Structure formats: structure tokens, C-alpha cells
């Protein structure tokens, strides 16, 4: 197995299982534990691996959170396209993600706040106030069914017979 293939296999494995025990992962992938650790270290340094996250369904806790998707139309800056606008937006701590997208809008932002009010304040006072921002459309998320490839709504149940030939 070459380095490239090794890396892809490691990434595919840990993408949805960040907390997997590395010695177990080594067994499952048929690799050496030290090789996996080395590659992971290297990929962390190279920024291929950007972090290890936990997928939380906040709705099942007492913590109040509101998430919104915001579509933003803006004017690109001379010589820098949308990079500068994007940067000015992603630096706000409450902004979770910023994507440049094709279609009727330029940027897609996800933002998390504790209340509707918090988010609307951000949109009116911070986001719309950006010089390059022409307009935005805010969509509040009502329910998360699936996130990061994981279905949140339903639990898997094994309905197979206990024994079949």
C-alpha cells in the first residue's frame, strides 16, 4: 500500500470515527499503529486534518441554541475576489462556516447563537453593515434530521432474525 492510499484509508476511517482507538484502527485497516500515528501527525501539520470534532444534538440538551443559514450577496473586491469579505465575516466567533457558492448568492454562512435575537442582531448590525454585502437571506434551522452523514432523528434497530443459515 503506498502512502497516498494509506492516507486516504486513514482519513476515510477517522472522518466519522474521530475517537477510534488507534491500535484498534491499525488492526481494522491492516496497518502498523506507528504508521498511522506518523501519517496523522504529518497530516495535522499539513492542515489536511484540521481538527477532531464532536457531533452534538443540542436539541436533546437543556442548552438553548439557534442555528441559521444565511445566503449573502456581495460585491467582490478588486484583485481579491470574495476572499476579503469572507475573511471579515468568518472572523466573527458566532460564525460557524463560510462557503463561496455558485448560483444566485455568493456566500453561504452558518451561524449559531443562543436566541433568535442574538442572530438577528448579528445580521442587522454586523453582517448587513459590511460595505461589500449587498443583501442577505436568513433561514432559521427548525430541525436537524441528518448532519455530517449521521442521521439524528432515528436510532438504528436490528430487525433481522437472530439466526439464519
Amino acid at each position, binding site marked *: 500500500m503506498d502512502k497516498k492510499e494509506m492516507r486516504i484509508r486513514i482519513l476515510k476511517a477517522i472522518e466519522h470515527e474521530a475517537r477510534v482507538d488507534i491500535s484498534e484502527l491499525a488492526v481494522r*485497516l491492516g496497518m502498523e499503529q506507528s504508521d498511522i500515528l506518523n501519517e496523522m501527525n504529518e497530516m495535522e501539520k499539513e492542515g489536511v486534518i484540521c481538527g477532531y470534532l464532536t457531533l452534538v444534538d443540542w436539541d436533546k440538551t437543556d442548552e438553548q441554541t439557534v442555528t441559521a443559514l444565511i445566503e449573502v450577496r456581495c460585491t467582490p473586491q478588486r484583485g481579491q475576489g470574495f476572499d476579503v469579505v469572507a475573511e471579515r465575516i468568518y472572523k466573527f466567533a458566532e460564525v460557524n462556516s463560510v462557503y463561496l457558492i455558485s448560483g444566485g448568492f455568493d456566500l453561504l454562512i452558518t451561524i449559531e447563537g443562543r436566541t433568535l435575537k442574538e442572530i438577528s442582531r448579528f445580521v442587522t448590525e454586523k453582517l448587513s453593515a459590511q460595505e461589500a454585502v449587498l443583501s442577505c437571506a436568513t433561514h432559521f434551522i427548525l430541525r436537524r434530521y441528518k448532519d455530517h452523514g449521521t442521521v439524528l432523528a432515528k436510532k438504528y434497530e436490528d430487525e433481522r432474525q437472530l*439466526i439464519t*443459515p
Partner: protein
Amino acid sequence: MRDPIARKVTELKPSGIRKFFDIVSEMKDAISLGVGEPDFDTPWHIRDEGIYSLEKGRTFYTSNSGLKELRSEISKYVEASQGINYDPVSEVLITVGGSEAIDLACRALLNPGDEVIVPEPSYVSYVPCVIMAGGVPVTVDLKEENEFRLQQSELENAITEKTKLLVLPYPNNPTGAIMEKEDLERLADLIIKNDIYIISDEIYSELSYKEKHVSIISLPGMKERTIYINGFSKAYAMTGWRLGYACGPENILKEMTKLHQFCIMCAPTTSQYAAIEALRHGQRDVDEMREAYNGRRRFLMHEFKEMGLKCFEPYGAFYVFPSIKEFGMSSEDFCTELLKEKKVAVVPGTAFGDCGEGFVRISYAYSIDNLKIALERIREFLQERRG
């Protein structure tokens, strides 16, 4: 009143593990590693196509041999995977699971008294199908030291002048054994010299973890004498759709289709439409599932080694077949006690032939988390037995 049951049926040995199945089915809270089907749901895009076919009102019979579109996709698939071309019109038949194809092949090929070589341990239906078709099963006890691959000498010893058919069940349920190209090549001369036909049950062909699976049809002179059986159950996690197929020489397929027409009419139409989608756009799903099984397989082998449980490394299907001979109990007793004491269900090797004595079949069509819990209990069980 007269005995209503045909003698042939009464004499048919009931599946050896009926008793064990009954005990298991009463234990609702048991963890099972005893299932012979994938734990994955059928990929949604395939299910969606089935649903769409219902919405469109495609609720009629198809032609006896199945939708032409599907047969042509199957022909392409076999050509791409084995380099052998079957005419979708006359050499492909869609059946109700691979199981029906096995039954049809036996009935189409056997005259009373014809002998059929069945390597064991293997799937439970070969011997009954042979008997009901009037044939005489001649079982070959495969050996663990050969990784349960059929040896040339074993085949040679089983051949008589009455031998008509050989069943080749690889990748194998329950052992997980495979036959590689060289293994098959060693059998080829014997098969041709003795003019034997082959039923090659390759339902687990996509679940092969060493090299890509090689079918006997790809060897010279074998296509003409082989009924190649495959299906959608294992590769695409479609067991409940009941869809398989047979490819083979036109003269044989014609007669199989005749039998199929009289007893089944045609395979389920909804399933056939879903299967077209599976073959056209399902390869990625197959690859991902294979990768998941392979990880579990390696994990199980590693854990067995830690426990000191003897097991040859299987490279196919989703089973491991460890030896429990060191405990001096029968397979059935071992499984019953494991179930009663630790609430883990595995299948006694004897369910798949007498030579499965001393082994148990453990399926890894379960999530890693599930496997871990079950393995922990098996570990405890083994420790207690060893004292």
C-alpha cells in the same frame, strides 16, 4: 387416513440445527453473531428505484426469464468482472434468490441416480435440492488445514462413473473460504476428463478480501459446463428482495427457464427494477460495504488470536469459522452453553454438514460495537471453560 406426506420429503433430513434455532428464538435479549445476511440496509437509491417502480404501476409479471434490461446489465457485469460474455437473451435467467437457481439447476440436470459432489461445510440447501431432484449427493469433507479449499485429490476420490455435477460454493458460507485461480486450475483437468458439470454458487463473489474473486467460468473450457449463480442479496444488502440469477449454456438455461416458468412465473418485478439501479449505480456501495466487512474481519481475527482461539484466516463472505476442538464439546453443546450462559448466539458448524463438528460459524455482519460486546462475552466463556 393415509400418510399425506411424500416419502422423499419425510426422509429428507431436517436442518440439523432446528433445535438450536428454537432455543435461540426464545432468547429475545441475546446478542447474535448468527445471521447470514448483511447488517446494512439496502442503499437508499436502490430502494428508491423499487418504490418508484411501484408508483409507476409496474406491478405486472415480467417475461419468464426477467426484464431484458436487467439481464443485459447482468451480462455486462459478468463480462466486466470475469471477462466472460453471456447472451442476455438466451443465457441469463433471473431467479428468486440464488436459492431458486440452485434448485432449478439440480432439477434441470439430474437423472435418477446421478451423483453430485457437494463439498462441506457448505450452505444448507445443496444436499436437499440434489435429493429432491432425484440425484445422489456425495459429500466431500473439506479440511481446515487446506483452509477449506477443495483439493484435487479430494475431488478425484469423490468421482465415480455416475458423477454428473460438482457444486462449487465459493466464497463459502460458513467457512469464509475462497478458491483462488490456481486452486480452480488444479481441478480443471479432472472436471473436463470426467465430463462433469458445475454449479458455481458465487453469491458472495463481491465479498472477497484478498485478490478480486475469480470464477471458474473464466478458465478455458469451463463456461460450457458451468451454471454460474449469483445474486443481489449479499453484495447490495438486498436479501429480502429475493433476487438472484443464473448464467449458463443456452441448452441448460432453456430448460431451467421452463421449470422456473412453471413454479415461479417470474422473479418479483419491483426487485428487478431495483436491481437494475443496483448494477448501474451501486458499485460504490459495494466497495464501501466490503471495506467495512474487511475491517471487522481483521478485527475478529486479531481478537481470536488474543483469546487463543484457533482459526484459519478466511478471505471471503462475512464469516469466520474458528475451531473449538480444544474444549472437548460438540459444536451444538458449545453453542447452546454459550447462548445460555452468555447470551451470545453463534451457529454450530454441524449445521453445514457433519464435518463442521468442532467448529462454530461466527458472522461479522454486525457493527464493530456489537462485535466488541459479543467478543467480550465469548472471551469470558472461553476463560471459564479453560478454568
